[in-house]
């Protein structure tokens, strides 16, 4: 009976497990192998040991991409409190047009990245874009948002934050609504004001959600590619300031056909994500309260 049950258990997770193995575990193993090889343009590999990694360590573009990616991730994390604010506002009971606001904030999440990228590229246009025209109307000479390496990553992060607010807000909203009302009632009886209630009840009880959002945001931010690809031209002068790790991977693997080298980049990124996520899980004990 027991072993029968166990068999059924395995049978039921088999589709998922097989999918994982075929689409995730196997490619990871392949990538790891490729990272120790130099691949021919049209296939075929030769073993080169650690050559790709030593070359990568000395590659200025990799250092630049790493810096850009970390800065982008930091900016994305800095945008998380915004989602909490939006969620809190959307949680106000009796707010008129609540459904409308929720739709508006969620819209970027369900919009195709290609549409998002192209629209922002147009908005950011240095000469004809609406943003700079608005700025010009108040006497400010706007920069070339996506052509100036010094501004590019901020312009990119703005789009990133904008498009992630809706998704994060929904998570926070669920978190907010999971906080039992009687905590607030008790606090009120004890004479705690609104602000005090927010900092003493809402924020601590929201920490599990916050932790989840921060982890997911970071992982996604470290893998950003689509926005860079869509907003910046392949020959954009801003690329040194906007090239992210995955974009660098794309350039090496798909534009320059150095698939072994590209695989090494992917492995480094995998390691980076692994380490940063592990650190976050370590630190959570200090600040996350599971009620």
């Amino acid at each position: 009976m027991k072993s029968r049950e166990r068999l059924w258990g395995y049978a039921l997770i088999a589709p998922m497990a097989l999918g994982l193995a075929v689409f995730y575990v196997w490619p990871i193993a392949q990538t790891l192998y490729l990272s120790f090889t130099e691949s021919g343009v049209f296939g075929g590999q030769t073993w080169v040991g650690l050559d790709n990694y030593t070359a990568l360590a000395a590659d200025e573009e990799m250092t630049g991409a790493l810096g850009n990616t970390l800065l982008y991730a930091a900016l994305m994390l800095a945008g998380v409190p915004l989602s909490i604010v939006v969620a809190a506002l959307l949680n106000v009971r009796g707010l008129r047009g609540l459904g409308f606001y929720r739709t508006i904030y969620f819209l970027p999440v369900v919009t195709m990245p290609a549409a998002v990228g192209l629209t922002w590229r147009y908005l950011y246009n240095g000469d004809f874009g609406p943003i700079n025209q608005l700025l010009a109307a108040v006497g400010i000479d706007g920069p070339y948002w996506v052509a100036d390496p010094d501004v590019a990553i901020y312009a990119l992060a703005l789009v990133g934050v904008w498009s992630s607010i809706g998704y994060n807000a929904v998570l926070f909203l669920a978190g907010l609504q999971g906080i039992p009302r009687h905590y607030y009632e008790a606090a009120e009886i004890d004479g705690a004001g609104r602000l005090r209630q927010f900092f003493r009840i809402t924020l601590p009880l929201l920490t599990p959600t916050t932790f989840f959002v921060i982890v997911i945001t970071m992982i996604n931010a470290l893998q950003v590619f689509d926005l860079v690809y869509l907003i910046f031209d392949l020959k954009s002068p801003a690329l040194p300031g906007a090239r992210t790790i995955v974009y660098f991977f794309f350039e090496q693997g798909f534009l320059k056909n150095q698939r072994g080298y590209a695989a090494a980049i992917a492995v480094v990124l995998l390691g980076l994500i692994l380490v940063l996520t592990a650190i976050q899980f370590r630190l959570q004990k200090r600040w996350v309260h599971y009620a």
Partner: protein
Amino acid sequence: MRKRLPIAGLLGLALLASGCGSSEPEKSGNVEISYALWEKNDAPAAQKIIDAFQKANPGVTVKLEITPWDQYWTKLQTAAAGGAAPDVFWMSSLNVRMYAKGGVIAAADESKTTGFTPATVAGYRYDGKLWALPFSVSLPALWYDKKLFDAAGVKYPTADWTWDDVKAAAKKLTDPAKKQWGIMTPMWDQGGFYNTMIQAGGRVLSADGKKSGFDEAGSIQGLEFWTDLMIKDKVAPQAQVYNDTEPLQLFQTGKIGMQYGGSWFAATYAANPEVKSRVDLVPLPKGPAQEGVIVASLANAVSAKTEHPKEATAFAAFFASEEGQKIFSDAGGASISAREGTQDGFYKAYPDFNLKGLFEGSMPHGVEYPVTLDTAKWQDVQNKLLVDAWTGKRPTADVAKDIAVKMNEILAKE
């Protein structure tokens, strides 16, 4: 937060996609071959040639596949790696050696290229063989906006113009108050700085293709032609502009006097009646040392792994034949037909532009587009380093010397 493909999955997908080649069973008398290209403006011409070919070869169907330039080579390479390249596809001289060496394309028949100007064929020879049959030429051209010239009282450019004429006219046409510029200076090799480097007596590559020519005095002068116009003379917008708005679009706004563009821009400019009426072109102006323009031809390559080599080869040959080339020309697409004496149809398709003058004035000074085995690798270095010169961060001469050093390292490994 949208779902992004996990990084490991990306590679996995590429491997997976390259693994699924088509293996349709061959049905006698009903053969389908695929034909891939990137220029949508040339697709109608290609379709007309396909129609004529199908009529002459009953039982053979040619399927047209259009992939935009930005994805074309990535897609082709992935397909080729999996042995699933299209049967016939567009090839540029920039990539032909890599595809020939990689065993992706089959050698072509030299005899089919009699009647072609040598400059159009030369780029497709490698290792003593010809690897693709040319069908079109792309010539650089000086486009100008007649309306702006009239307003500023400047005489239109002629085929006898020199660099000095360009500079003088650009100065007169520039009006910062109106955000109007004399000329555009995008960082562009084929229609831009490769030409001026040659015109100033420099070169991109040594004759044997083993050394960079970027550090030669003429080459530096050819590059400074551009950076000076932008940074010293201030008669062109700053380099960042082109990231946001393509030169092709910018020129149509009517705020730009001149543009080093291409013969193939004709299709785009003619499509807009207002633009068509106010722009025209002449051959590139002469440089301080000599006349010289980069003639880039495009060619059809046949996959080495095609299941229908006979039909695929016949199609590529038909495309380059007198009949195919006339159909191509008459359709009035983006590029000029390559076979000598078949260009009349193209001229007639664009009566507003002096394309005949361009072709006849440029071809005698044609220089083939510089390529080596792995052109993309050193061009990447060239493009990345030149940004510093174009944005005025470092002197152009210093940047050019750096390019030569790095390029020589790459060329030494080929």
